[in-house]
């Protein structure tokens, strides 16, 4: 099997390729099909949406800081929490991972010159940007933006209960960003299957790339369902289809089933990439290989598989789903997630841990996500869910897992790969200050919300009576939100300083282990001028520390220079069968 031998290898062009014909500046940004330009555009755009949604969260927390909050009207409040959730989930957490960091890093980690379908990649970004702007533009319409929550439950989301252009723009925006995600998913799968460097078998891929493969497959399972459901909802609103309304013989709960069949894989689409980032960061800053590498891959695959069979745990209180089945499936997800925790601890165990900002965020993720995971197991018990569903307990739980992954995990990845993407280092001192504000602010914000939920405070309420006794905990939670705001502000300052007064980053500033660190920072036009031989899952480490490779990985003794031309396509470890 010499599937990859025909491809013009970047190895055969040691000098930097000619690219004087490339446009520069804005024209480059508009016309580029380079995964690095698109990846950076995605990263910046998604971080802008993150900041916008964060400001909305600050307004929401200010409204709730006192009873009978009057900072914003009930209508505005409803728009704010809807758009906060929609921006964070659809426009930040997903696109930041698979459009931003994965787009930039996956081709580098597999040793490829670009994504498999560069023009499709550009189309993904433009669909995403257009969709995002369409959603935000809802605020400019007469009736305001969508205000039916990010889940848009039928029949609240139909034309009678939510009239106006804002909700329509929300629907169209999600169809656009949905297609963007699907195209990116196709691209990632094709890139990982077909563009791997010689010697890079499946079981030598970095964990981040493995997780992106499973994520991309989940995108292909989940997003078409959402896109189809949104089109049905649009038909209900404009063509009188009555699919989700009782009046025409439709079934409102059908929307919930379709939505959560997307929605639960979606939360793993939002988590798995960040698990991957954290894994790579922990291994690099522990100077060790990933512990239980294969077990971790199987854990990721089983999380992906189970995540398609747990959607109705969002619907326990509807009274129309099979409780024991969805409860058991949800509990079972704790098993592979637990395996991952032991992999992460095993990776750090007896390592040499260096606490850069990236490492701090990665360890912060472990601490935060564990608590979110445990409260997730509680919610998977239908009786406990009856008591806490739609309360702040659930709000605290999903912020702990989603904020834990997308923000702690995502910022670990961002700090880790920022030198690769920009050729500049971020200031460590500012980064660490931002981490501590975030870590403390996080607990101050969300621990009181668990208690509020247990004390009976429902989610999505614009105001509450002083007699409820929720004022004190709400106030603490709001203070925490301001700490989080400060943390992000420090980070923005850090980006600004690195832009104005750069400290140049080398190709491999962290003693990284995987192929992206064999490229320059930032990589040249087609990424690599040189690749080390790939004989394990950490070729750059093997090359830099030949006396400290993993003993258990047998070396192929005839491939001693960098020009390994033969790759296996099967799931083999050593590649020796291909001789």
């Amino acid at each position, binding site marked *: 099997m010499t599937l990859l031998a025909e491809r013009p290898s970047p190895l055969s062009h040691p000098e930097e390729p000619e690219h004087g014909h490339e446009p520069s500046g804005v024209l480059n940004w508009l016309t580029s099909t380079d995964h690095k330009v698109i990846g950076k555009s995605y990263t910046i755009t998604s971080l802008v949406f993150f900041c916008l949604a964060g400001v909305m969260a600050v307004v929401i927390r200010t409204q709730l800081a006192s009873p009978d909050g009057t900072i914003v009207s009930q209508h505005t409040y409803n728009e704010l929490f809807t758009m906060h959730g929609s921006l964070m989930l659809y426009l930040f957490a997903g696109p930041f991972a698979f459009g931003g960091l994965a787009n930039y890093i996956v081709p580098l980690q597999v040793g490829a010159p670009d994504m498999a379908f560069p023009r499709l990649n550009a189309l993904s970004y433009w669909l995403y940007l257009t969709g995002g702007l369409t959603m935000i533009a809802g605020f400019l319409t007469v009736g305001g933006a969508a205000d039916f929550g990010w889940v848009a439950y039928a029949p609240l989301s139909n034309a009678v209960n939510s009239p106006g252009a804002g909700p329509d723009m929300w629907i169209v925006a999600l169809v656009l960003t949905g297609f963007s995600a699907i195209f990116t998913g196709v691209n990632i799968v094709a890139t990982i299957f077909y563009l791997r460097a010689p010697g890079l078998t499946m079981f030598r891929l970095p964990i981040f790339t493995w997780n992106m493969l499973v994520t991309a497959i989940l995108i292909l399972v989940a997003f078409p369902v959402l896109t189809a459901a949104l089109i049905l909802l649009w038909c209900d609103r404009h063509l009188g289809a009555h699919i989700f309304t009782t009046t025409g013989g439709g079934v409102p709960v059908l929307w919930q089933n379709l939505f959560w069949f997307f929605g639960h894989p979606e939360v793993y689409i939002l988590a798995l990439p960040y698990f991957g980032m954290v894994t790579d960061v922990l291994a690099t800053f522990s100077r060790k290989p990933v512990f239980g590498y294969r077990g971790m891959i199987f854990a990721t695959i089983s999380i992906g598989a189970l995540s398609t069979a747990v959607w109705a745990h969002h619907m326990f209180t509807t009274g129309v789903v099979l409780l024991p089945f969805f409860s058991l499936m949800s509990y079972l997800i704790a098993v592979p997630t637990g395996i991952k925790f032991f992999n992460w601890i095993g990776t750090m165990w007896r390592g040499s841990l260096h606490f850069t900002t990236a490492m701090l965020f990665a360890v912060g993720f472990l601490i935060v996500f564990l608590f979110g995971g445990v409260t997730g197991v509680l919610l998977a018990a239908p009786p406990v869910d009856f*008591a806490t569903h739609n309360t702040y307990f659930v709000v605290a739980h999903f912020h702990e897992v989603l904020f834990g992954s997308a923000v702690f995990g995502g910022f670990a990845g961002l700090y880790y790969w920022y030198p690769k993407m920009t050729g500049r280092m971020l200031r460590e001192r500012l980064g660490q200050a931002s981490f501590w504000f975030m870590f403390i602010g996080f607990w101050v914000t969300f621990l009181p919300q668990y208690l509020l939920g247990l004390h009976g405070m429902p989610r999505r309420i614009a105001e509450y*009576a002083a007699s409820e006794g929720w004022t004190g905990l709400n106030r603490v939670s709001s203070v925490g939100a301001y700490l989080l705001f400060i943390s992000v502000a420090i980070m923005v300052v850090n980006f600004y300083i690195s832009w104005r007064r750069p400290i140049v980053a080398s190709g491999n500033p962290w003693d990284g282990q995987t192929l992206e660190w064999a490229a320059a920072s930032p990589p040249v036009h087609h990424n690599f001028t040189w690749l080390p031989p790939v004989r394990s899952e950490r070729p750059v480490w093997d090359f830099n520390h030949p006396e400290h490779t993993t003993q258990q990985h047998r070396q192929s003794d005839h491939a001693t220079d960098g020009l390994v031309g033969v790759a296996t396509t099967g799931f083999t470890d050593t590649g020796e069968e291909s001789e």
Partner: protein
Amino acid sequence: MPLFLLGGALVLGGCNAPTFGAFRGATVQGKDEFKLWVGMVIAGIIVAIIVWALIFWSIVRYRRRRSDEIPRQFHSSLLLEIVYTAVPIVIVGFIFYFTVVTENEVDAVSTHPAETIHAVAYRWGWRFIYQDGNGRSQGVIVQTGAEPALLAQSPNSPLYPRLVLPDHSTVRIVLTSPDVVHELYVPAFNFGRNALPGHPNVFDFTTTTTGIFQGHCAEYCGLYHAEMLFSVKVEAASQFQQWLTAQQSSQAQSGAAS
């Protein structure tokens, strides 16, 4: 060890166990839920402490001392991997058993409820229609008097409807919605259930404690969702009957007058 402690916690739960912030439950169903809650929280805390301890040990003990140190490059341990896969599966099996037992208790519906109440959740209020044991209407309707866009009042405010229930009785609730999805949520009962358009949901409350409890709509239902409140009053069965009779006569009179 976690298994043993979980089992112990489930047996002890509900007696003098700490509540971990939750309501103890003012109904039989709510108390069942509370026991499961306590057991699972204790198991969860034990697991979390073990894992956190391992994380903290790693970050303190294995901090880099010299910039050139390279640790031993071990990367797996089959035995350890089997153990940390198998133990969670056993824990899950154990928790799942107690979950199903509790769930069946909470969701059980009596064939002879003392009272049947049709609860209608609508934008933005509640209507409670009382029937006798044979399903005949007793002519009593409690309805919300509140106009939306009041500033939030206590759910005990007379502006909001009050669901009155007899103590130590099993009451059946038949919950529906004429418009969007709502949720009847009584925190002190540890219970919430959706009101779905086109599909009545039926469940029982077996009351154990007199008092006034707050109720909310917990499923977001649009503009005035935050003000869709009610209260539940549980009183001795005799008082309840007096209240019901008084309501019957006053509502019959006002019906005749109009």
